[in-house]
């Protein structure tokens, strides 16, 4: 039997496994974490089984700190409230977010720019008749705006990592101040409600973080990927001056938790 703490080798895990594991490592014990459907559920579940047993998970539909024994397929799922502290509704949990209680949130997106502005609304020209409509903001923009730290999980493609996203659904570190629309630091827009912003973007190729100016830089590349491959799949020039080497792969224990404890049915990990 393998040591649960030993690192796996590239052939022993899938890209999605590393995404879940890397995301789970962003959780500090005791964090109040806002999570959505899919990978975030795997990440928070894994974090609670490993380094952050006291992390509290809030789902947007209205559950707090559930301990599902069967993985939910969405945050509205009946499974979310098993052994939960609270089963309430959106008004409760979004108020907690706005009150400043959320330490960390996991989010996704269709497009991102170097400041962590994210688009989930529409591709191409937007307007009364949009060119290509996406799902819309959901809670993405609220959560990215009001949580202390956010971590995005995304697919690394040139068309998704853009110099300028087609629609700023979710606010990064440099954002328009309305009604004028001049681009300023997030702090200036959020004033009394400013608490932080995007902390990391985790893709299938690497982990990005944000510097003092709110600009994205490559922190680690995943085993099997490289700085060059990542730059080739990024629509803007990536700051690679702070690369720290390879992303640590999953441990055998982490994979075991993911496949046998968290998602044994193969809902997200097929």
């Amino acid at each position: 039997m393998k040591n649960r703490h030993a690192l796996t080798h590239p052939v022993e895990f899938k890209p999605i496994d590393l995404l879940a594991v890397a995301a789970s490592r962003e959780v500090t014990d005791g964090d109040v974490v806002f999570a959505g459907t899919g990978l975030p559920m795997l990440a928070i579940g894994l974090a609670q089984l490993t380094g952050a047993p006291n992390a509290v998970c809030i789902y947007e539909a209205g559950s707090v700190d559930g301990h599902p024994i069967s993985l939910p397929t969405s945050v509205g799922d009946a499974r979310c409230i098993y052994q939960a502290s609270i089963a309430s509704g959106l008004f409760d949990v979004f108020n907690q977010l706005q009150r400043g209680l959320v330490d960390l949130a996991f989010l996704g997106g269709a497009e991102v720019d170097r400041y962590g502005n994210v688009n989930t609304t529409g591709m191409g020209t937007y307007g009364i008749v949009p060119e290509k409509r996406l799902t819309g903001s959901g809670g993405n923009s609220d959560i990215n705006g009001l949580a202390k730290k956010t971590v995005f999980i995304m697919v690394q493609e040139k068309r998704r990592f853009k110099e300028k996203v087609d629609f700023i659904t979710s606010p990064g570190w440099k954002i328009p101040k309305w009604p004028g629309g001049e681009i300023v630091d997030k702090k200036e827009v959020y004033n009394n409600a400013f608490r932080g912003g995007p902390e990391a973007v985790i893709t299938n190729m690497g982990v990005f973080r944000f510097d003092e100016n709110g600009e994205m830089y490559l922190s680690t590349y995943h085993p099997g990927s490289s700085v060059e491959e990542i730059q080739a799949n990024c629509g803007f020039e990536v700051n690679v001056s702070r690369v720290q080497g390879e992303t640590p792969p999953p441990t055998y224990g982490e994979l075991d938790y993911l496949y046998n404890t968290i998602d044994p049915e193969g809902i997200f990990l097929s």
Partner: protein
Amino acid sequence: MAPPKQMNLKDAIAQIQDGDMLTFSGFTIWRRPMAAVYELIRQGRKDLHLVEVNGGTHSDLLIGAGCVKIWESCWIGHELFGKIGANLARKAEAGEVVIEDYSHLQILYRMAAGSMGVPYLPTYASLGTDILNPKYDHLGQMGLRDGSHPKIPMKKYEVVKDPFYGGELIHVPAVNPDWCIAHVQMIGEGGTVRVDGQVYSDEEAIKASDNVIVVAEQVVTEEYIRREPTRNLVAGHQITSIVELPWGAHPTGCFGCYETDGSFINKFFTRTRTQEGLDAWVQEWIHDIPDFNAYLEKVGIETLETIRANPAFGYSTKIKRGTRA
């Protein structure tokens, strides 16, 4: 105020007029009044104005079927069973439906303001996003914010200074839909509503609306439902009509009663990405069927029994969900 009347689904839905503003119970693919949506389509309702805290299978279908003119919300899709609301996307891209975007918290607060009887609520949500870009105030761009439409506020939002503690934030306008159609687990004969599990934004949606049709899995006596008043959500004086219709949320899930029928929703998503596909689906599942009983027959008892919830957990323990189940 007259106590709410119990009636059949057809008569309840017939009260809704073309052009009315509607909202719904539930969250994405959970506790949506699907049978009521089928009936709206069957009755050929037009030009509906939907304002909902989030969208899902119910609204994507209603939009695809051509019943909707304006959709104000923050999200639409079918969760794991269909990544986008393809019908809304198609209709919007064709210029047949207008979308007004708010964030989740903003649209929730619009509904909450309506339920509180205040004209707006303040929030810090989604500052610094294109949701607030005046270019994308679509109703405003179309000239609908001139004060002549009583349900359309004269501004999409307003930027304001906080005189109490300093700083700046926005106000989002209240909404009071003409109708909320809510699917819930239980209602008393006098209209006392009980929602079990997560309540999502049902309280805000019901209380913001001028009229409320409640479709319930079970209608019980008031004496029974009032034994535990702390578990009830809304009293009868805020309810207009009561319809008893078990399984009425199918294919969306209903805590404690049945699971989301993911396979059904995924087939809907796959088949209705084109207008032709949607039209065929509507013909097959709505127009070719006389009523909801025939619908359930068509879904089949095996499916219904598979998705039926285990009372110990509130969800089904029989359904196969993943690839390794």
